[in-house]
């Protein structure tokens, strides 16, 4: 098995590794970098639990090899919050509306929603369902997730307009 040197940025930090060609990106993130927030659900690209941002776009880290991420900019769920012990507005909205139960699909859902909100500050319910339509959740029936993403969008719009509204979030 050939080994390859890779260097990439993960959650803003430069990380390097020497990886076998067949190592998937999700295994690299979880086993080598110990970023275990990204989950493995199906390993065939359907469930979305392993979603990460790859150069700004949501991607299935189970369908990518680690070597393909050489030079890439990766964001995982651990990179969403502004700081340790803090939550992003999106994460906090999920908490406010209990948009999760077992928490297993949650990191992938957050990545999908985060990517949506980067591009669309006022998503409709349809937009939200499109954005998370490739992420499977077995607990929630999606309702509270859809509502939480809408709430996050609303809060983020408010944050852009009025700084003083940010307190209490």
């Amino acid at each position, binding site marked *: 098995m050939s080994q390859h040197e890779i260097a990439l940025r993960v959650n803003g930090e430069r990380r390097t590794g020497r990886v076998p060609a067949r190592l998937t990106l999700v295994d690299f993130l979880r086993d080598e970098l110990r970023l275990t927030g990204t989950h493995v659900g199906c390993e065939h690209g359907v469930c979305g639990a392993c979603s990460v941002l790859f150069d700004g776009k949501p991607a299935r880290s189970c369908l990518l090899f680690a070597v393909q991420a050489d030079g890439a900019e990766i964001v995982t769920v651990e990179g969403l919050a502004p700081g340790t012990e803090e*939550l992003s507005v999106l*994460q906090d909205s*999920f908490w406010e509306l*209990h948009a999760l*139960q*077992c*928490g297993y699909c949650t990191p992938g859902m957050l990545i999908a929603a985060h990517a949506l909100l980067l591009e669309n500050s006022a998503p409709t319910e349809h937009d939200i369902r499109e954005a998370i*339509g490739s992420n499977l959740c077995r*607990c929630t*029936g999606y309702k509270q997730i859809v509502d939480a993403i809408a709430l996050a969008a609303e809060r983020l719009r408010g944050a852009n307009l009025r700084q003083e509204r940010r307190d209490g979030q």
Partner: protein
Amino acid sequence: MANEVPAFRYIGRKRRPAEDRRFLAGSGRFVADLALPGTLHVALAASPYPAARIVRIEADAARALPGVRAVVTGAEIAAATDPLMSGLDLPKMLRYPLAVGQARYVGEWVLAVVAETRAIAEDAVELVDIEYEPLPYVVDPEAALGPGAPLVHAELGTNQLLRRQFVWGPVEADFAAAPRHIAYRARWHRSATVPIETFGVLARWEPGARLLEIWASIQDQLARALRLPGNAVRTHFDVDVGGSYGGKRGLKHAVLAGYLARRLNAPVRLIEDRLENLRGGDAHGPDRIFDVSMAFDETGLVRAMRMRALDDVGAYAGRAPFQLGKPIGAIVGPYHINSVAYEPISVATNKTPEEAVRGFGQSPTNFAIETGMDLIACDLGLDRIELRRRNLIPREAFPYLIPSGSTYDSGDYHAVLDKALAAADYPGLVRRRDAARAAGMLAGIGISCCLEPSGGNSSFEPLLNPKRDATTWMEGCQIKVDLSGAVIAAMGTSSSGQGHETLASTIIGEVLERDPDTIRVVHADSLSALPSNSPVGSRMAIMLGTAAADAAKKLKAKLLAIASHDLRLPLDGLAYRGGDISVASDPGRHLTWDQLVDIAHSKFHRLPPGTEPGLQALAVAQVPTGGMLPTADGRVQMYPCYAFEAHVVYAELDRVSGQTRLKRYVCGHDCGVMINPDIVHGMTYGGIAHGIGAALYERFAYDGNGQLISGSFMDYLLPSAHEVPDITIVDHCTPSPITSFGQKGSGEAGYLGAPAAIASAVNDALSPLGLHIATLPMTPDVIGELLAEAEERKR
């Protein structure tokens, strides 16, 4: 009285669940997230045949691969471990983690490779050569019962694992007296809970301590199979579990990993991949054929029902056959049916074994009953809702004893149905459906009225297996207040998304009048030995809730006793407020929470004589109404609490693709007092989504060669945000008169009524074509084919 919700300080109010934060931060601790140095990994070779004798295993090449530490076969496992327990009395049905001598279904584990990485282990599996001799097999449950059918377990001499005939009430007389009868077959094909996290286990043997450590969502029986005393296994229940809904048991996984960890003296990790999970995880769900007849009068009042339920449990029987037993506790649904004959039959086939699914057999039974209600309405030309109204048990009839021996605690079914219809704007829905039909579309409205039995007693065990005279299914909770005054509560099981920590902290906070957010709830491991069972049967709000409340009450009583002694006043002269205790007539004289804690921990001279120092209390809850063995004619109180749900759904069918699109979904729901409404609603939304899957998409399909043909998420289709519509839940509250706060269980809500309601909607949509189906799932290809055949017939 219905809808008069008692006022609580914390119960029923909005509260952010304590568990959510760690999951949102990406810092949940699931079993695959744990890393022990030197961990070895397991990969499995699985049977490609539905039945085959294992003739020869050639594994030298695998053993020689660098990094491989062991290759283990069924023969070795059978010599070193005891068979996995069966719920039924079937001593000749031997089941081990790996097939011994013979494989009995496609995907059955035949051999395990342990290696330094999972990749090496998988490489080694490829190098193993297993010679099989294919044997006759059977995959159809009715064929399996027939004469001359291939036997799944030759030692048993039959594929029939269980057959009972219950008659509750004057069934013959009621059928004879009723002017009208219907008879029908309802088919529920196998689907399952399919959590997004597969089953996983990490095991480590501590040779010095002679202790096996297990990280997994696994309960009893493990030590016994490993021939270890119970106190030589520590199961860590604080590991986060990525969904279960009943299906995640993993006994064979844990026994295998535990055995390997001890043999190799190294941590061993077994994480199913998705194919292993769907094919060899032994967690398929009920696979059931109902033959039902109902006797009724001209007004639609149902007098009697006969139900034969044939369930295909697959190749081995664990607890799965008991899923024919739970529905006995709600065998008449929400209706006042006078007499019932019930014949549950459990049959083995060469398919993946069945495990518990959310509702433990109740949802298929609800579907079978509701199919009959729609057929009767059709037969009489009566409105389906009016028919249900006439048959629903009226509010004033509670507590209501059903023929099979259970008493329904409380309910107001008509009110919940009316609320759901109002929220759905039922007349508007009818107009919408009719307009759609006028435009040439296939559109239908579905109705279902279903029960959610909760908090069970495991009474189905003695009912279906008299050797198991179990009459409790307890749950414990221990509360401690530490020296700093902080409250810590311990529960005895793992959680898989149900919010048990929030449940317990809310209830303890309610009793002690302390902010639940300041109460930490931990999951005791199995050696901490908190008497408990597991979070099944929608029981935790009732059982953990009762245990937490009782422990908190004991603790509060101790605080009051300390204050009474210290203030030299009788108890009735004291007032407890927020943890502080004051003299009722003189609030200025008081002891604060911190002072009381200090006395309890360090001032023995101020404690009442004979009082233990410290502040802790343990309570173990017995199931309300539990403790009774079945009568000779098979009557028993099965569940203490009965929640109710009424579903109203509007659907449109695509004539070309056959896909059913749900355009409006309302669920009226009454589970008594909700401890945390967001959690209850979340589980109900999720249950409905799961029910949508069972009704329209999910099926473990087998071909004629006994091959599972839906072994990936490309074939086994879980509903996504596109298939699950925006659901409206309408709450109603009829408190249970027999629980601590009026709560009922609710973890299986939504799933219990959704398949019935969706089937009802599909059939309403098909009715203008004169078509009817009573087979789930109603997948696009099933409906498409039905429509095509109808089209063909017209030509």
